[in-house]
């Protein structure tokens, strides 16, 4: 193995990190915005609300992301009506095609994750909220969603990490993110071993940072309210009780 090549290619590939992160966070944001209302619809007991969403998540979770990307990128490009429409301004660009595919795919998974959290919220809490006179929207916003989000945070973190790695598929439609740059570099050096190893290290680094972020978020959301100033008093009170 050529250590020098490994190091130099890590530096070269690092220039692909911004595009990888942009793709990840943009599709994450779009996916989240889509998934929140969809997950409430999916959790609804009204069939006409939940069935269309079920159809959507079924299709997007049931087909490979690569196939979805190819249908959006190469497939839609073959349709003359789409090429002459205003949509083509976005769809002719590989970046927007990737963003669309990743967002729709991510939103499907996120919807199902949030749906599970929403359905797991104890009915007692909802009844209590109703009892104090909150409107249905207020209950969703203040009670159901925060509780649901906390409980599904580990699954959601998993989905985010999957998305980081899924962005490597963008290299199949000419985008030069980390994987795209790696393939370009391999074609120049014929040394796939060192270069893909370097790419792996970069993805590992990104995942490490994201895992850390979600662990911290989890600790913050699930832990007891932060009451540093009162810790001693609480402890003292307990001591006095014991005495």
């Amino acid at each position, binding site marked *: 193995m050529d250590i020098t090549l490994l190091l130099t290619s890590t530096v070269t590939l690092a220039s692909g990190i911004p595009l990888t992160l942009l793709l990840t966070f943009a599709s994450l944001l779009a996916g989240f915005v889509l998934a929140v209302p969809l997950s409430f619809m999916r959790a609804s007991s009204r069939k006409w609300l939940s069935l269309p969403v079920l159809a959507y998540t079924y299709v997007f979770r049931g087909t490979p992301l690569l196939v979805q990307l190819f249908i959006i990128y*190469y497939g839609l*490009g073959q349709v003359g009506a789409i090429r002459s429409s205003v949509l083509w301004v976005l769809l002719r660009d590989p970046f927007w095609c990737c963003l669309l595919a990743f967002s729709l795919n991510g939103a499907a998974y996120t919807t199902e994750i949030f749906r599970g959290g929403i359905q797991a919220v104890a009915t007692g809490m909802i009844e209590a909220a109703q009892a104090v006179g909150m409107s249905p929207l207020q209950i969703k916003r203040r009670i159901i969603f925060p509780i649901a989000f906390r409980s599904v945070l580990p699954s959601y973190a998993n989905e985010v990490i999957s998305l980081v790695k899924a962005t490597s598929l963008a290299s199949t439609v*000419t985008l030069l993110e980390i994987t795209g740059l790696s*393939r370009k570099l391999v*074609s*120049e050096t014929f*040394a*796939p071993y060192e270069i893909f190893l370097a790419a792996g290290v970069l993805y590992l680094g990104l995942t490490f940072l994201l895992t850390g972020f979600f662990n911290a978020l989890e600790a913050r959301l699930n832990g007891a309210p932060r009451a540093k100033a009162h810790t001693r008093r609480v402890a003292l009170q307990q001591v006095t009780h014991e005495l």
Partner: protein
Amino acid sequence: MKRHLTCALAASLLVAGLAHAEERTAITIASEGASPPWDYIDENGALVGFDIDVGNELCARMKLQCTFVAQDWDGIIPGLLVKKYDAIMAGMSITEKRKKSITFSMPYAVAPNQIVMRKGLGLPPSDITAKLSLTDIDAAKKETIEKLRESLKGRTLGVLRSSNSEAVVQELFGDVAEVRSYDSQENLKLDLTSERIDGGLGDRLVWKQFLDTPDGKAVEFFGPELSGGTWGPGVGVGLRKEDTDLTEAFDMAIEASVRDGALGKISQKWFGVDISPQLAK
């Protein structure tokens, strides 16, 4: 003592090598399978094309049993180096850069390259029958290239990833045009049809076949036929450097099949022209 040991080692390696050469009865050849008419996958899922016919012809002459496998273009040289197969026949040009990693037989075809552009872009007329060799660029050639650069300014050009066309486009037009690299010629054509890119550079004979299809009607050749320079002397069989016996066998078989016209016939069958190399008498 040490020298004796080295000699003994070298001798044993040589014997092992010879023994290996004598043993060789079958080889595996990799082709890309995505660049008709050179090599492609037909509707039955079989690899067919000029490369495959030439390969079978050469194998018959070398008395070897040959199996063809399809391998994506950007992994085709690494795959040879790790011995997934023994030879590459995929319309691969003999270049100095590739020679650093692998070796080549003598050329079995000499094929020009050309730029294609979508029709209706308002490009100035160009002489598509002219020929331009990128070896030894003089003032006149420089002027032709400058004209091409002027016409291609701000355009998006597609090329096959890790092809010589990619290197040439980057070198000649990389600063004036946007270059997109595709993992197969098929995907490049799709993006040309859907007007995501304005043109591309590649094997003239591959374009020619595409231009004869309904999708290719919207595309035309632009500028002179290009050869030489990065493209080197022609298309050869890619082989591992240590397989000198196989390289020699291929050289002999190619020379014989050029001389008796077998290669020319295969070329006529697939390309409609004879692109077999010219040999000195």
